[in-house]
């Protein structure tokens, strides 16, 4: 690097940092001598988490060399976390898959084959399964990290082409309860407000979320809000003291699974002390109990009688006092704007939907909604669980555009948009995720496509489902960029795919914001974008099944260039035809518009003009949400036009405290909970290959409370065996004031067979959302030895 280039880069680095905090420096970009840099910057989204940070990838001579944040983006304002800063190193990694790999039996070794052979095998296996065993013997299991174009195109092929609703994805494991909560409380999926409420909030309530590690860049905004305004109250409710808890004014620490009592007790205080918004309730709210039976407010008050703060504190245990509960409830109700955040702590629960309802209840009761600084904001874990899976029809019971499979009129709308015969899409939902993998175990699924996810590691009680996945009765195709535990144990056919920035497509993040990432570099030779794979496979399927309707499904996309034109055509079909008039109307968010935005467009955005302003900041508010104006039923300022509530009202739900499925007993006396840490993403197939991130956290630990550790003779670093009714792990101990006494907490990213905590977790699930209770089960722990030298492991 020449001296002048070095100086140029140093000044550029300084200017970048200065820009974010508004500091003037004695030079600017014009004064720099070395003007023409050969680095071209390409704008896109970060590949990881649901925040939706906007970044620019620096490319020099076709090679990615740098990354920077986009300061104008309304999600991250230029900031990026360490995973975001480094994820692009995956692109040139030596382990990238570059050729299709095939083995007839899962006991054989993989052999490289050509793309033509591979697509032929894939088509053949699915066609044969359908012919010999029926349409529901095939299935698709996708991902909240797939581009919207990919999820949409896959589900079109499976529903319209192969005539099965066995379309699922890993958001079933993370966001399904949040979806259920939004639909039953507000009548429509996804938050009413968004991140902009942070800078206006006066009370921030963080429950069941470790934002500091799982959504660091949004957490930075919460921290900044508090630093700039010391009067802002931050309340954190978590059985574990996490990095998020460090900034809380009040941390409520309690036994896992007792938070339903806490939320009801807060409601009790709000009702008893008349802190609720009577006018808001009168105008906009009905009260419901089980099976959506309407009740009057007096009956709800009666139900809340028993949830006194004293009752709740007793159930919750820990150090929570009734007075703390009162204080939290009062601050929540009386602040100028209360904003709640939560993620898996509430969603990955047997009563996940109820937990979501109870948080929404607090906002509904107090009218802390629809105004600046007030919202109940479910943080989404993955970058495209919202955009692709929840909005694009990626779960077994929903079609694109927030339509229910079960409604004939809505199926017909989709069939018409696709130009396929009425009645083509099957009328019943398919298998939900846990049922799907149970069906694999029962040999009912003969051919399965697993896209961009690793269920061998990420399913709860994974040993049980790995049995079925490892058998040759289920032919499995995996599309991925690296080998994973799933490709190695369960795949017959591996298809190498293009990575982020190596292909074009849209991600929709937590706050209803769709953002585009354009192709900046070519994928490694041999790797292909998924949209091409689906089209080529689809054409072969049409031939093998002699089915012109399958050909019709791919017809609008034939002959299009795969790096840009093809995904654009798919996005156009989805946004223009499938979201038209739906509550997630994205017609204004064409590629042309999205490419002009530093960030993206929040739906609903039915017109380009509106989309160019950024879209809808607050749903349901006349004057801010175009659909509140077009779909409103009266003159009131708020219009709840969501598809799930025909009465166009918000629903306040009577939901009791209910225990998790498996709580500690004499044999298994500890609560086990699991979660993420900042350096690693999910199953670490990507972050484990970036040496800076791996070095920060080379393997998983089990966090043990110091009081428990002392009692059991466990010292920091000791090897600890964790056992449940389902399986065993051995992990090094981190003795740390993190989990509450009687609870242990394990990080779930590790691929090593001894440290894969999902062998130990339980696959109980929410009866409504079908989302598993990863967060709570019972285990016992035992010291097995002193510290051992451990090596990181990646398959």
């Amino acid at each position, binding site marked *: *690097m020449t001296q002048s280039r*070095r100086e140029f*880069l*140093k000044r*550029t*680095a*300084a*200017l*970048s*940092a*200065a*820009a*974010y*905090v*508004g*500091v*003037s*420096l004695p030079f600017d970009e014009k004064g720099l001598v070395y003007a023409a840099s050969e*680095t071209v910057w390409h704008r896109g989204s970060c590949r990881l988490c649901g925040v939706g940070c906007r970044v620019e990838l*620096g490319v*020099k001579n076709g*090679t*990615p*060399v*740098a*990354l*920077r*944040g986009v300061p104008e983006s309304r999600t991250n304002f*230029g*900031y*990026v976390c*360490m995973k975001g*800063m480094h994820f692009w190193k995956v692109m*040139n990694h*030596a*382990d990238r898959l570059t050729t299709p790999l095939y083995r007839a039996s899962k006991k054989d*070794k*993989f052999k490289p084959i050509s793309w033509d052979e591979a697509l032929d095998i894939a088509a053949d296996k699915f066609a044969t399964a359908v012919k010999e065993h029926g349409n529901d013997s095939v299935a698709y299991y996708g991902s909240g990290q797939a581009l919207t174009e990919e999820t949409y195109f896959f589900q079109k092929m499976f529903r319209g082409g192969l005539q099965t609703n066995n379309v699922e994805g890993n958001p079933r494991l993370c966001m399904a309860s949040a979806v259920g909560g939004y639909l039953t409380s507000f009548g429509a999926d996804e938050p009413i407000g968004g991140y902009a409420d942070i800078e206006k909030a006066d009370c921030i309530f963080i429950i069941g979320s470790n934002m500091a590690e799982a959504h660091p860049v949004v957490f*930075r905004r919460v*921290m900044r809000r508090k630093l700039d305004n010391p009067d802002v109250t931050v309340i954190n409710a978590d059985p574990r003291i996490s990095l998020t808890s460090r900034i809380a004014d009040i941390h409520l620490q309690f036994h896992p699974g007792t938070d339903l009592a806490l939320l009801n007790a807060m409601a009790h205080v709000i009702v008893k002390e008349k802190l609720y918004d009577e006018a808001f309730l009168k105008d906009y709210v009905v009260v419901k109990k089980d099976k959506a039976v309407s009740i009057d407010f007096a009956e709800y008050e009666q139900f809340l009688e028993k949830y006194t703060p004293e009752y709740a504190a007793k159930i919750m245990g820990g150090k929570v006092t009734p007075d703390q509960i009162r204080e939290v409830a009062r601050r929540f109700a009386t602040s100028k704007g209360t904003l709640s955040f939560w993620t898996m702590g509430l969603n990955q629960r047997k009563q996940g939907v109820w937990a979501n309802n109870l948080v929404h209840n607090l906002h509904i009761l107090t009218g802390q909604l629809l105004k600046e600084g007030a919202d109940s904001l479910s943080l989404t874990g993955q970058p495209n669980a919202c955009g692709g899976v929840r909005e694009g029809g990626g779960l077994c019971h929903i079609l694109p555009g927030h339509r229910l499979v079960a409604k004939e009129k809505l199926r017909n709308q989709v069939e018409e948009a696709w130009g396929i015969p009425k009645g083509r899409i099957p009328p019943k939902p398919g298998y939900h995720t846990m049922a799907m993998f149970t069906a694999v175990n029962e040999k009912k699924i003969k051919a399965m496509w697993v896209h961009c996810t690793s269920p*061998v590691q990420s399913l709860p009680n994974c*040993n049980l489902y*790995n*049995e079925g996945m490892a058998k040759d009765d289920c032919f499995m195709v995996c599309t991925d960029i690296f*080998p994973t*535990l799933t490709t*190695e*144990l369960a795949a017959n056919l591996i298809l190498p795919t293009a990575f982020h920035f190596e292909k074009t497509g849209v991600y929709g993040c937590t706050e209803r914001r769709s953002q585009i990432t354009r192709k900046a570099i070519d994928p490694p030779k041999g790797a292909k974008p998924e949209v091409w794979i689906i089209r080529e496979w689809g054409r072969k399927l049409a031939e093998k099944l002699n089915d012109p309707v399958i050909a019709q499904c791919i017809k609008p996309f034939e002959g299009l260039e795969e790096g840009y034109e093809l995904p654009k055509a798919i996005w156009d079909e989805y946004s223009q035809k499938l979201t038209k008039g739906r509550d997630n109307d994205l017609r204004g968010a064409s590629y042309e518009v999205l490419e002009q935005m530093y960030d993206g467009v929040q739906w609903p955005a039915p017109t380009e003009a509106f989309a160019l302003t950024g879209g809808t900041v607050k749903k349901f508010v006349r004057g801010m949400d175009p659909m509140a104006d077009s779909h409103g039923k009266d003159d009131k300022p708020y219009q709840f036009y969501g598809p799930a509530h025909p009465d166009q009202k918000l629903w306040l739900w009577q939901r009791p405290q209910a225990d998790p499925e498996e709580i500690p007993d004499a044999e298994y006396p500890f609560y086990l909970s699991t979660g993420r840490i900042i350096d690693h993403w999910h199953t670490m197939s990507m972050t484990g*290959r970036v*040496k*800076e991130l*791996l*070095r920060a956290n080379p393997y998983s630990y089990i966090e043990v409370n110091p009081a428990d550790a002392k009692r059991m003779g466990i010292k920091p670093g000791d090897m600890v065996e964790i056992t449940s009714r389902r*399986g*065993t792990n051995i992990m090094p101990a981190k003795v740390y004031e993190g989990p509450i006494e009687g609870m242990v907490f394990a990080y779930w990213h590790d691929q090593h*067979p001894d440290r894969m905590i999902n*062998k130990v977790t339980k696959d109980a699930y929410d009866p409504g959302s079908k989302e598993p209770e990863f967060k709570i089960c019972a285990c016992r722990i035992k010291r097995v030895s002193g510290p051992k030298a451990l090596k*990181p492991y*990646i*398959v």
Partner: protein
Amino acid sequence: MVIGGFVVQTLPGERNVIVEKLTSLQGVEVYGADKKGNIVTVVEADSSDALGEVVKLMEKLDDVLNVGMTYMNMEDEAEQIASGENTPRVFTGRKQKQASFEAP
């Protein structure tokens, strides 16, 4: 050469002390600061590993609240990796086509 741009956050009162401590670290230059306690810092190092070590030292300083990276350029290293000259070795590569995956 790896170059990173950072915003180092400290409490407003501690700024001058922190600026001195930062500039005493090898490869660290301070370019500006504001009243809120934000310090515009640039760090140069021989490799991205070395940069990481310096960042760790910065984070460990008393009264440093946060070190936020806003820019990083490692084009020398990236070009070496792309040309095969420098292969970052974390594992010894994929030893076998199929890992043995045992259920307990």
